[in-house]
């Protein structure tokens, strides 16, 4: 019972990092970015690339990696942001000027998924990669097994989420971003440059996704399809939490992560007792989907969503 809960928190913090990016783009650029999963994957591969270039600096504490990983993550966040800004410049900006509908932008991002996924697969191959040797878990009371890296995963996500929150809440730029999401015309009239806001939205979204991808790579492995399988949980977290709500993305991410792990393990136990042979872990994405239906039946705008938002 507590084991799946711990796993759920780890998974939930990774989903949250992706969900914040989805919700920011959905709110400020007004479309659901289907390429967000591919951005997530790209971030993980950039980290892999830099990790192999940088000299090995040994490992910190009892983590499986050291300072070179931290530098690689930062470089990966920058590189991923640059790639995403490049796509914005050549594709999305033109479409914005043309006043393309949000569905049209979503479809464009679906096209981008295949371009990015194919490029990643061509460069790094379709096989699985690892950042380092697989770590053995430390045993805690109550049958909890946690790898030291997993503390890092949760801590790094929480810190970055907090930084992003403080940025949006207190900095001038963050306030301008929130103002734009609230009312574009009013924000523009007050002298907020929309293009600058869009640039920073992409940078935040891509950086958090790059971190999320890297953390998932640390926890499991990196492969070209990793982001695609995270896409649905990320979207569901956003819809459950309420589109455009920062706290909603955090709560949604955690709810999805924990319920995926908890419900699969509970159902698996139940099926074992009833002697039904179903491998529940294969159906984790289905749980996210069932959850979305329940929440939307009760609260059509999500848990933290504003009406009409």
């Amino acid at each position, binding site marked *: 019972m507590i084991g799946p809960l711990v796993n759920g928190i780890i998974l939930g913090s990774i989903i949250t990092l992706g969900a914040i990016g989805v919700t920011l783009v959905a709110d400020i650029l007004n479309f*659901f970015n289907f390429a967000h999963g591919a951005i997530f994957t790209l971030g993980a591969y950039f980290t892999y690339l830099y990790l192999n270039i940088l000299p090995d600096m040994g490992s910190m504490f009892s983590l499986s990696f050291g300072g070179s990983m931290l530098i690689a993550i930062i470089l990966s966040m920058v590189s991923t942001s640059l790639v995403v800004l490049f796509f914005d410049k050549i594709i999305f900006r033109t479409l914005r000027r043309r006043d393309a509908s949000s*569905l049209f932008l979503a479809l464009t991002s*679906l*096209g981008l998924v295949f371009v*990015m996924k194919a490029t990643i*697969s061509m460069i790094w191959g*379709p096989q699985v990669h690892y950042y380092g040797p697989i770590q053995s878990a430390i045993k805690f009371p109550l049958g909890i097994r946690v790898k030291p890296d997993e503390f890092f995963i949760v801590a790094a996500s929480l810190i970055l989420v907090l930084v992003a929150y403080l940025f949006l809440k207190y900095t001038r730029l963050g306030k301008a971003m929130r103002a734009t999401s609230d009312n574009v015309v009013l924000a523009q009239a007050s002298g907020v440059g929309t293009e600058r806001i869009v640039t920073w939205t992409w940078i935040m979204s891509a950086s958090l996704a790059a971190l999320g991808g890297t953390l998932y790579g640390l926890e499991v492995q990196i492969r070209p399809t990793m982001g695609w399988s995270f896409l649905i949980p990320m979207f569901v977290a956003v*819809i459950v939490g309420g589109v455009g709500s920062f706290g909603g993305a955090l709560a949604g991410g955690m709810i999805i992560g924990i319920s995926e792990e908890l419900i699969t393990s509970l159902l698996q136990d139940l099926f074992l007792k009833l002697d039904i042979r179903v491998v529940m872990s294969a159906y984790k*994405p289905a749980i*996210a989907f069932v959850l979305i239906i329940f929440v939307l039946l009760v609260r059509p705008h999500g848990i933290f969503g504003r009406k009409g938002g």
Partner: protein
Amino acid sequence: MLSYIASYLVMASIYGIIALALNFQWGFSGLMNFGIGASYMLGAYSAALLSSAPTAEHLGGFGVPFPFDLIGAAVIPAFIAFLIGFPALRLKGGPFAIATLAIHEIIYLIVHNEMWLTNGVWGIRDISRPLYSQMPQQYDFFYLLIAGGLLIVFYFFFRKVVRSPWGRVIRGVKVDEDMALMSGKHAWSYKMQSFVLGSAVAGIAGGLFVHYTGFVSPTNFTPLMATFIVWLMVMVGGSGSNRGVLVGTFFVWGVWTGSEFLTDLFPGSMETRAGFMRMFLMGIILLIVIMTRPQGIFGRKKIIPKYLRSK
């Protein structure tokens, strides 16, 4: 060579039927269905299971002969779409697309994992190919008559449907749901009807596919091959134009089959990577169409007269 062209035309006809179904859902009804591949997959597996001989490997042995199992291939996806429509059609736009994408993933997972039902990744073999024993040499030409014939039937069917009074309401709901409601048309119900009809037609295409290849496995229904390529066909041709969608289908399927030579250009060890070249090409085509001609080759920007638009 001729039979190569015939086999290209057969597959293009099958994809053409799915593209017409998607065009009806997206181009005329405004439903952003990213799960059209799920209906295609359900239709394919329904036909395969209904017509296959009894076996210990998976469900089967119903013994429904060829043209009649296509009814099952239409009814089963339609029924599933009906069930899914209740929660999914409460959502609009982007969230609806996500919900349908999730449904595709779930159905894919079931087909992929449940050995007793679909034989999992091993797929279903020896699906009956109608009249194959009579003409193994000219089979592609014979099947072209069936697939191509059905494509033409569905082309005129959708042409008729869209122009009927019912189709006018469907188009009206796309443009302005509130306006349709005000005119006493139950918008939600019309969206559901469109969703179910499109899914049924895509299911029939799935049934045609398995009787042509005689084999079906989950790898036929990846997001690229079952959903994205169909979207590409609709977008290239022009959503909202049935004629355009047919042109788009034959063009996109031509590029896809033509690009097979790309895999031959690379040495053996690089072959898997060359496969991704083709995926890359498909994505790039969509981006080029969107940037240069967003309404597609034959697309019209408006599907109802300007003065009727509310915006």
